[in-house]
């Protein structure tokens, strides 16, 4: 039961993050929405390693006792690193845009850059 709730919570976070991406006008909120959504995907993935009564899967663990599935945990570690890198890069780009165009609003940035390319 807990595992279903956790997985559903992960999917809900993805939906919430996507919602922020649509509804918020400021770039920084959109990027935070993206980060919430990737957190949701990670939560969903790690909830899959749950086994009823499972113990942490460590080396030297006695056989015969149920252990949590180690594979999703390994995947999640990789995914966290990737999402961290993506977030860092997107924030750096957002700062660069804010410095050059003096705005954080997606629509205004869009108009300013379209003008730049028209020239």
């Amino acid at each position: 039961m807990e595992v279903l709730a956790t997985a559903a919570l992960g999917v809900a976070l993805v939906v919430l993050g996507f919602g922020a991406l649509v509804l918020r006008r400021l770039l920084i909120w959109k990027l935070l929405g993206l980060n919430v959504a990737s957190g949701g995907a990670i939560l969903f993935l790690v909830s899959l390693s749950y086994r009823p009564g499972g113990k942490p899967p460590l080396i030297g663990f006695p056989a015969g006792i149920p252990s949590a599935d180690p594979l999703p945990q390994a995947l999640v570690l990789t995914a966290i690193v990737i999402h961290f890198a993506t977030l860092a890069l997107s924030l750096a780009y957002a700062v660069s845009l804010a410095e050059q165009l003096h705005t954080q609003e997606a629509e205004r940035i869009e108009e300013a850059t379209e003008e730049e390319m028209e020239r």
Partner: protein
Amino acid sequence: MTPALMGVLGYLVLGVLGFLTTRARLLSGIALLVGVTSFSLWFPGFPPDHLGLGIWAIPWQGDPLAAAFWGLSLFLHLILLLSERGWPRHFYALLTLLVGTILSLVLSLDLFNLYVSLELTSLIAFLLVGIEGRPAQVWASLKYLILTSCGMILYLLGVGFVYAKTGTLSLLEISSTISSGDLGLSLGVGLLVAGAAAKGGVFLLALWLPTAHGYAPSPVSALLSGLVVKMGIITLARLSTAFPIGNVLVAIGLVTGFLGVLHLFWEEDIKVFLAYSTMSQLGYILLGFGWEAWAGATAYGVAHGLFKALLFLAAGRAETEGRSRHISKLAGRLCTGTRLSLGVGTLAIVGLPPFIGYGAKGLLSSAAPPWGKWALFVLTLGTAASFTKLLPSIIRGKKAGMADGPPLLLSAAIFGGGLFLLIREPALRSFPLLLSTVGAIIAGGIVSPLMRKLPVSLPRWRLDESFLAFLFSAALLALWFLVR
């Protein structure tokens, strides 16, 4: 498999070293040598093998698709090393890393390994698009980042669903159980397809593509359009070996092909024009994989990589020589070499024999179902009609500045590859195929002035519109898989 692994590792190590030293271009050249040596050792292929130990080993396979893309990646790497000087050193380091990642991606048959490689190519591509730091490029890159990251989040959810249902991530071991009507598995596959398609430049899911490829520095555009965007398509092709998604690939291929051509008619910015043309060309490749015509789809992927790289490099020169990105303002201002490159690229993309575009289109067409031949005919007609727009700039211009090494090398590959296909495949020398191709090109030339007179204003795909289109089409795809 060991030589291929050594090649990939060599590329990645030399790429990282490139950030630390001042001789990044030299290191990139050494990486290319390592790659070529490794390729010559494992060519023409190796059977599926496992990387690592136990049940978590990652399956790798050197099939013809992987071999073709190794060849294309190494060749484009050589072209960019020859043509690009004077970039900051991290440009060359990123180039090395990007090619290395692509070399590993095309060999992989593991859902999560594909995910990591896709994300890595995206991250490097974001850095390359914004490398000059101009706001339009940074914004194009950020849109690319946001939309593909959302796609990859869906892909990750899909990995979760498939792993929960099958207990494995290896595409070799996942049997085609989707027809059993398991809702979780169907939804998972739908999410995987939507995620990979958002990365692979499929229309309505990947509307970051026109600005990212259009506004990036020209050598980067050449690499992105020629190589990087096809990684999503290759992922879709790999998925189609484990799951029955052929019909979906045909459907999204048709949508991408036709909507891309539609945008081509009324787009005036030369590089954005080429970017939309990439989207429509990806439609051909998707159709090929959907029809299980792997030879044709692979040939088309390589052919498009060659001629689109040539076109983007030429467009970069045209932008400098013509002091404008507007196609109608370029006529009369371009030098001979640029016009020659644009000409060869145009003839190849519309599929005039004996250029490689014809061979690849012919291979696809001979494997297509009867209605598919008509779809390809109309697509070719549309491509030819829209590319007539470039003719004035190709015909009129200065008589100075001959083509130099890299464009000539690319043109030679386009011509030689076409001749190679013509000699090897007897199906390409059939009279009806020749007639229909040339007929489509001529009809396109006639239709073009009529089409361009229509007053049409196409939507501008800003971030919010693109994201809503992405959500809409991802939901549509998921629904398709659930209902089946």
